């Protein structure tokens, strides 16, 4: 019973973030679903050993990354078409903001993996540079460089006008 409760708490706390992380990692909704399911299945199997609450997020991230790598190590699939990126359910955004969201998502899909992944870890998972560095097994300064370049590249992809407009919408 205690294990069930802990697992339910784990799912409630992390399933949304982990799904979003998985999605931006693989850029496909169905594969993200499978990755998340496999991740939580493993979490359930190991629930008795999961004592350190602080380490849970990093542990879940590691499983997602490992499963994703196993799936993709031999074969690169085409990525999802820009028009297929889910935008319709953003009920909290105005119509104008939805356009901006669409642009940013499209740019994110074009961002190279080495930039996209740490950026998603930081923005979606709320991880610090140190946590990202530990997960990716690179130095903290390398993470900061990648994050800096990720944002630069994203703004380049959006174009100077679009990037400023996106920021203006967010500031309003």
């Amino acid at each position, binding site marked *: 019973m205690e294990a069930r409760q802990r697992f339910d708490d784990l799912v409630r706390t992390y399933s*949304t973030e982990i799904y979003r992380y998985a999605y931006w990692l693989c850029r496909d909704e169905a594969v993200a679903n*499978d990755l998340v399911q496999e991740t*939580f299945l493993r979490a*359930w199997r190991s629930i008795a050993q999961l004592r350190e609450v602080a380490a849970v997020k990093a542990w879940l991230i590691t499983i997602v990354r490992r499963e994703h790598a196993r799936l993709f190590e031999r074969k690169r699939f085409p990525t999802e078409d820009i028009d297929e990126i889910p935008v319709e359910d953003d009920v909290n955004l105005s119509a104008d903001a939805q356009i901006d969201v669409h642009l940013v998502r499209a740019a994110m899909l074009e961002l190279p993996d080495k930039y996209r992944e740490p950026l998603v870890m930081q*923005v979606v998972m709320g991880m610090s540079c140190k946590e990202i560095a530990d997960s990716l097994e690179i130095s903290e300064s390398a993470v900061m460089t990648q994050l800096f370049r990720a944002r630069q590249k994203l*703004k380049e992809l959006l174009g100077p006008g679009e990037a*400023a407009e996106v*920021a203006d919408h*967010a*500031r309003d």
Partner: protein
Amino acid sequence: MQGTDRQDFRLRLGADPSDPALAREAMALGDGAQDELRRAQAFERALGEALAIPVPDQLAQRLQAIAVQKSSGGSAWSGRAPWLALAASLLLVLGLASTIWVNQPATASPLGIAAVEHLVHEPFALLRTEIVAQERLDGLLRKAGLELPQAVAVNYASPCPVYGQQTVHMVVQQPSGPVSVIYFPRRESDALGDFRHGPTNGRALAYGDGMLVLMANDDAGIGAVEAIWQSAMLAGEPSGQLIAGMD
């Protein structure tokens, strides 16, 4: 000194705009830096909104059901051996791709070849393990003029243009691997029967007012899925006149 500080500020702003220490530094550096900070933080909010993609309905409940299933010893296809299924799917995708790249001679009809080659365009379809909502599947089939008296379960369903017409492309996961099913509405049944294209086996059936093309790398999977679809149609047609494979 000011220049170095400004450069360091910009680097840190680009790496982590949410760092609370940046506000203090921006104040020390002056108006220009405060503007940069405001712009960077505004962009960050937009980025956060963009990355917060919609999460599938009932995601948490489905994941919590894993514990219930596993505790009771139950199993679902996707939970039992998802990576076996994925591996089989990948093999099929690679096989299909190599078929086209190597340009092997086809023994299938032009429609059969088009159906097999369409699968390469949607490799992710073969990886799907969730059951498609019945309303969605019924809606797609109804649009294609097909009403099944009995529900069938599929793991992927999408309207797709194949061989010059709109079709319903579906995938059914089987223990032997995924079976792709394409329904061609209002199609004359002029190329029925079993066929093979590269490593892919296929079977074309007359079904409803059109054709059903089943494809897999294993005949057992095709046979199993054919039986399900025959049964679904026969549930409303006691005479069973609508199903006709040509062996």
